[in-house]
């Protein structure tokens, strides 16, 4: 089928952007949670 490869490329690229963005949110969230835990424990120790 003519141009099927272009259609597949568009869908692959489009959904890859959404997926990578979603993963980046999840990763940043985990990093922040770890940082918050670290800060909380260091604050707790200093009290």
């Amino acid at each position, binding site marked *: 089928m*003519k141009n099927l490869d272009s259609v597949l490329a*568009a869908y692959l*690229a489009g959904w890859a952007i959404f997926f990578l963005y*979603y993963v980046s949110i999840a990763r940043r969230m985990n990093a*922040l949670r770890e940082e918050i835990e670290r800060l909380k424990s260091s604050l707790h120790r200093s009290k």
Partner: protein
Amino acid sequence: MLKTILGAAILFVLIAFTAYLAFHYAPVEKSMGIIQKIFYLHLPSALSSFVAFGVCFYANLMYVFKRQPKWDWLGVSAAEVGLAFISVVLVTGPIWAHPVWGIWWTWDARLTLTFVLWLLYISYLLLRSMLEEPDKRALFSALFGIFAFLDVPLVYFSIRWWRTQHPQPVILGGPGSGLDPRMRVSYLLVWAAFTGLLVLLLNGRYKLEALRASMEELRREAEVQ
């Protein structure tokens, strides 16, 4: 973690659902053929980006008047999510254009203004990364966000106001425009699914921003001690 897995599962179902509607239910368009199937990704992404930038604009206005951090969090979240959607538009557009127009890109009003929109919201995020003081960062980016949103109506109306290489609107486009009923149903359902995706991403990004604010608060406490 459970929420992350659930979110990813929803995304997977959305992909499968969109693919089924676009490739099996909706008929193949006569003049362009199978390449027109990109429409079911390209147009909902464009409209979702406008919705996200609209939310950003509203949040920016609210921040300027109320100065509450939650509006700043919503503003930056919507700007980033809108940027993801508009990036999909800018990637899928040329892939669709090449077999149909014979060129990947042309600097017509619609394409240029869309590219400018992308640059404006990239600048919005860059501006935020350059300002460290939270109140100053929130106010300056809110003012810039209000300015950036002015490009959204220009992008939307560009194909009505000027002669462009980009096709005329098929939805709400006036006499002679319109979609086959099965294409219209598919398009509307795909758009509903994209709205779900928009809400999912916006919700996740907003939580991230709220968490960042908590962390900055804790950091300040740690510095004081």
